[in-house]
């Protein structure tokens, strides 16, 4: 498979994955661009992998996990949070239900990043524990722990949101 074929077939899916992973289209785009540039430059090695698409998914994930610590990420995240605030701002939400669903998205973004990656890989990408372990470079048991912890947090968060949703949203950040 050539890089061109790979990009044509997989780029949209990688972008979708990155949006779910990062919670932000701009960041997703930057992460995927950087990953695909690197993948193109070392394509022969990528193509030799058993499953190139998993290999590249791992690159995307690592890019995200690694970049979070850098100044670049802080800049992007700040921009991102400002953007979120503005998006949430326009007055009282017409539908309570949709506000709750946005709360789910916000909850996801507050998960520890590895937990979030595991959740996205499982519930969005539909990967098995073993595949997720491969992408994250951890043991399958760790993946299961990440996921169950993440689900617990999301559940608690949702319950909390449902009782004091207005306060939380007005705060625009951590409770």
């Amino acid at each position, binding site marked *: 498979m050539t890089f061109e074929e790979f990009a044509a077939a997989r780029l949209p899916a990688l972008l979708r994955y990155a949006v779910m992973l990062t919670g932000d289209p701009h960041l997703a785009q930057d992460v995927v661009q950087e990953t*695909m540039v690197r993948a193109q*430059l070392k394509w*022969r090695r990528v193509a030799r992998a058993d499953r190139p698409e998993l290999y590249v998914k791992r690159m995307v994930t690592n890019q995200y996990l690694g970049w979070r610590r850098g100044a670049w990420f802080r800049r992007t995240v700040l921009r991102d949070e400002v953007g979120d605030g503005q998006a949430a701002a326009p007055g009282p939400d017409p539908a309570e239900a949709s506000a709750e*669903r946005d709360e789910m*998205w916000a909850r996801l973004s507050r998960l520890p990043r590895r937990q979030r990656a595991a959740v996205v890989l499982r*519930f969005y990408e539909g990967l098995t524990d073993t595949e997720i372990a491969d992408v994250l470079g951890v043991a399958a048991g760790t993946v299961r722990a990440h996921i169950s912890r993440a689900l617990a947090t999301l559940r608690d968060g949702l319950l909390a949101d449902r009782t004091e949703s207005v306060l939380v949203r007005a705060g625009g950040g951590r409770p």
Partner: protein
Amino acid sequence: MIEEELAATFARHEGQVPAAEPLRARIDETARRRRRRRTAARSAGLALALAVVVALPALWLAGVRPGGHDRSTLRTAASPAAVARNVLLVTADPASGQAATVLVAHLPVGGGAAYLISVPTDTMVHGTPCGGTAKLSCPLTHGMDAERKAVTSLTGLRLDGTAVVHLDKVPALIDAIGGVDLCVDQPVTSRATGKSYARGCAHFDGTDAVDYAQQPTPADHDFGRQRHGQQLMVAMFTRLMGAGRPASPGQAAGLARLAQGAVTTDTAEGGVAELAGQYSALRPGGVTGLRVPDLYTQRDGTGYQLSGDQATALYAAAQSDALAPFVAAHPDLVWKLTG
């Protein structure tokens, strides 16, 4: 239940996913820029490798995979050639399948020079598959191996590689580097196209350059043809080092692809990068064109060149990597290849 909410949340945010097309273009552009930066230090080596690949017998060519020069191919910062090498280059006459060109490129230790030795194709050789004694042009009809054996037995040279140049594919290659500058030393009219090439220097496109280089000359016949072939090789080399130098890795890959189509080598893949590095100091001015001293004879009504003492001395000098002193002592065998 939480799983369903997650799935719904993800599905709802798919609307935020950016379009792939513009990103695709940015990826390519960024990769190109980065690759260029990375290859900047090696670009001289790249242009040269291609030049050597095209102009010299393409020993290097087998490993210059299309698009493959970006990383590993030219990464080797090889030290100058530590051994001398001889490479056999032939072209075939499309009608008869016989050799139209037999040329040995001698590459001395150090990698900064090259000697092109045109061996007359009507030189008498013995023990060929063409009924024993025959002209050097004949064994090629029995395959490259037979031709190689004939050249080895004639010259005594150890041949490190062989290459067959497909002349019908060379014009496209020349056009891809924007043509070549050649100086016509004798007015020639093409037997193939009827086209006349007047004395003087001019810019040639691929078709004309190859046509011109294949014509025997009025004054020295086949020797003129041999010389023009060498001049064309150096003209391509010069062009590749100058105005025809590939501007991007993409262009270089395109050239490599054309060159690969134009030349078939027996060289194992992988050695190419290293070899290109070993000859990175070579420049067009370092290429010396040589003819083999002629000694004409007739046998059974057929004209042959014989390999005389002087020819034997030339081959021996090449085999012992001592062509520089030999050339200094025999300026009459040296052809002017440029200007």
